[in-house]
Every structure is written in C-alpha cells, then in structure tokens.
C-alpha cells in the first residue's frame, strides 16, 4: 500500500504552535504562510464566495491563536486546522442559509452544447461548470471530496478532520463521485464536447 506523506512537516507545525503558545506572533505568521493557501481554497470550495472564504480563513487563524493551548497533539496540526476550518464553514453556511435563499439565477448556468469554441471561454465555462457541480453536492459529500481531491488528505485524516469514521469518509466520497459522474455524463458538462 502506498504511504502518503501528509502533512509534509508536522513536527515543524508543532514547533510553530509552541511558539504561538509562548506569544510569539512569528509562529502565527509562519503557520499562515504554510496553511493559508490550503485553508483559503478549502473555504472557497465550501462557500463559493471569495469574501466569505477570506473571512473564514482569518477566523481560523484567530481561533488558532486563542486555542493554541487546547491543541492536545493527538492529530496532526494540519488536521486540526482543517477541522476548525470545516466547522467555521459549516457555521457560515448555516448563518447564510438562515439569512437568505440564493436565487438560482445568481449562479451561472451550465453552457449549452456547442458553445465555447474560443478556448479561453471554454476553459472558463469548464471551471464554472465544475464549480456548479461541486455546489450541487451535499455539504458532507463536498467536505470529504474536497479534502481528498484538492488537498490529498488520506481517508484516515479526513475522518479525523470531520470527526467521522473512515467508512463514512469512503461512503461520502463514493457518493460524491457517483453524483458528479452522473451530472457530467448526463451532458450537463457539455464543455467536454466543446473542447
């Protein structure tokens, strides 16, 4: 069985957290440099809004500062960060759901077959279609799939991040991929033909 090196440098992460506990702002900044890109892209895929994703990412690091002393070292620091981010995204979505219903016309429609001969337009449409397909997944499926597909987390780490069993992780990813495959093969992603 292949062994994944994830996260890349957990002992380094733990040292940064230790610096943070001692009140060294440099520890927080280095953690930001290491994990902001990953946490931002995770939040973006969960929330589909740049401003919200940036706010949630900031929220994660502020929480890390105030909760550094609560980290017990059992999970990798990276898993702990993703767990905070996943919770923050869920809270944000709950709040937004309570606040408003997004009108369907606010999300770009999938392009019609044959549209997009120009390659830049086609690739933009392709991206929009993938994003819309991801948005069509349930929150649970999307969390698990995003962590696996875009962050390369192994099943066991995803289970730690989401607080569920490895079996449940497999099921969520399985269903997410089945859903996406069905959407793509139904012709909704007609950009395949356009490219």
């Amino acid at each position: 069985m292949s062994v994944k090196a994830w996260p890349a440098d957990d002992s380094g992460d733990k040292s940064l957290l230790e610096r943070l506990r001692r009140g060294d702002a440099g520890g927080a900044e280095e953690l930001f440099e290491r994990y902001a890109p990953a946490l931002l892209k995770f939040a973006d895929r969960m929330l589909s809004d740049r401003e919200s994703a940036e706010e949630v990412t900031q929220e994660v690091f502020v929480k890390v500062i105030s909760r550094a002393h609560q980290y017990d070292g059992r999970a990798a620091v990276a898993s702990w960060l993703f767990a905070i981010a996943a919770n923050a995204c869920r809270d944000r979505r709950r709040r937004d759901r309570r606040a408003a219903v997004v009108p369907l016309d606010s999300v770009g429609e999938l392009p019609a077959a044959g549209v997009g001969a120009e390659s830049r337009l086609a690739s933009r449409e392709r991206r929009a279609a993938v994003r819309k397909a991801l948005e069509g997944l349930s929150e649970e499926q999307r969390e698990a799939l995003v962590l696996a597909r875009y962050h390369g987390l192994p099943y066991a780490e995803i289970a730690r991040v989401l607080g569920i069993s490895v079996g449940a992780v497999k099921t969520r990813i399985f269903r997410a991929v089945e859903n996406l495959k069905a959407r793509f093969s139904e012709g909704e992603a007609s950009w395949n033909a356009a490219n």
Partner: protein
Amino acid sequence: MECRELTEYALGRLLGEAPSRERKELDAHVAGCASCRAELAALEETWETLGADLDLPVTPEFRARTVELLEDETARLRIRSFRPGARSPRVLAQAAAILVAAALGYVAAKGGIGSVTKAGNASASTGNAAPSLPDLSKNPRLTNVSYRTDSDGRVAIEFDATTHRSITGPPDDPRVSSLLAYLLSANETAGEKSRAIELVSQNFGPGAAVASPEIVRALATTVRRDRNPGVRKKAAEALASFRSTAEIRAALLAALANDPNPGVRLVAVDALAAAAKEAPDPKTIQSLREKAFDPSENGFVRARAASALKAIDL
C-alpha cells in the same frame, strides 16, 4: 473483485490508498469486463475534470490584512497572560489599611464625613490618584486598553496614558461614553477597534443604555472608513442594534452602496429593512430596490434585499 466494487477500488487507486493487491485485482477485472472498463474511464475522467476548478490565490492584500490581525491578536493574548497576578492577602490588607487611613484623614481635613459620591456616577482612579480622564481633545495615545462589564452593569475601562488609569461607570455616563467614542476612533489596530465595538454592542441598544451621539458618530465613521471588513461589519452591526436615526440610516445606506464586503452590505440591508418596516423611507426603499435588481451584486445581498422589500408595507 466484483463489478459493484469498481468505484471503491478505483477511488482507492486514484487517492493512492489502494494496496497493491487491490490495484492488481482492479486491473485484472477491467481487462476482462467491458462495462467496468467504460465505467472506470468515466470515473477517471470525472476525477480529472474536477481539476479544472482553479484554486483561489492568497492575495497580497489579504495576506497583509491577516498578518496585521494575527499580530494584534497575539499581542492581546500576551498582554492578558502577562497581567500581574493577585498579590498576597497580607500585602493587600496593609495597602487597604493605608488607603483607608489616608482617605479618612482627607475627609476629616475637608470638614468631616458626609460628602458621598452619587451612586452610579463614573469614578476614575490612577496609580497616583489623578481623578480625571485625560484631555481627549489633545488626542492622547491610550495603550494597554482593557474593558470589563461588571455584574451591576457598570463598564470599566482601564488604559495607560502616562499613568495607568481606570474609568468605571454606567455605560451612559458622559465620561464613559466620551472615552468609548474616543477609543472607537483612536484605536489603531483591528483587534483594539473590535474590542471597543464589542463593548459598545454589549452595553448599548435595545433594553440597555442609549448610545450617545458621539458613539454613533464614531461607529458611523468606522463603517465608512475602516479598512478592515471585519471591523466595519461589527460597527455596522452595532449601529443596526440601535434605534434608527438619520445619521445611522445615512451610514448604513453608504455601506450598502459602497462597501466592498458583501457581509457588511448584508448587515446594512437587514438594518435598513428593519427600520423601513417601522417607518418606510423613500431613500432606503430605492436603495434596496437597486440592490435587488443589480445583476453585478452578490447573490446573497440581492436575495436579502428582495425579501426585505417584500416584507416592507409599501
């Protein structure tokens, strides 16, 4: 391996989680099963297609904003953790005895015991017993500011301005209000501003004290000008919790029209809509209408503006 296990095996391979035995079983199975071969190709294409979704980059502005916020937060925690602990009871008792003796001597020299401070008024203390606020008109630099709301509803604000000072009083006491308004305007970092706004939100508004005009002005200026969206949002939320006035409405209308952050605009929509429900205002209704039909506006803001308009009795 059986056909129904295809997705599980294929995902294991795509994610690098499948043992070599499973990978070999998968290869052997698809070699002899045309439908699974097609299914596997579709699955791998789906996986590949997901790669078309680009990663959102960390912009230099976001990095700078966040690093500043993290520095603030770390400094705040450091100050809290290094705050001197309680001294021993014996030392405290000795200090109290000296203070009581000094106070009695002072009162006796002034003509006897009988002038009692009116309950509820603000009191001020400093390390060297200076009893007043610093002259805020001279824009003094106040550092190490901390806030507390006591169980009796009095607000305590401690700060350093040459000497360490502590101002305590009910939230609507003029000196507490002035100091809070000053801190809302003068604080430099996002963390400091946020804490001042939080104290205002906790102590003013429905069922609590009425915010003074200077506090409202300071919050309105923060909503309009602060560069941190989190701070602007908190200030807008604080204004939203007050009884609507022309100044508050103007600040929220400006936020709805100009604030780049949809979170701030959402707060503005809610607050303006709530005020318009009680007393419909043409400018508010026009602004909400524009937002509801603006195709370039964030979907959440548009939807909220549209629902707000429906709820207002036009």
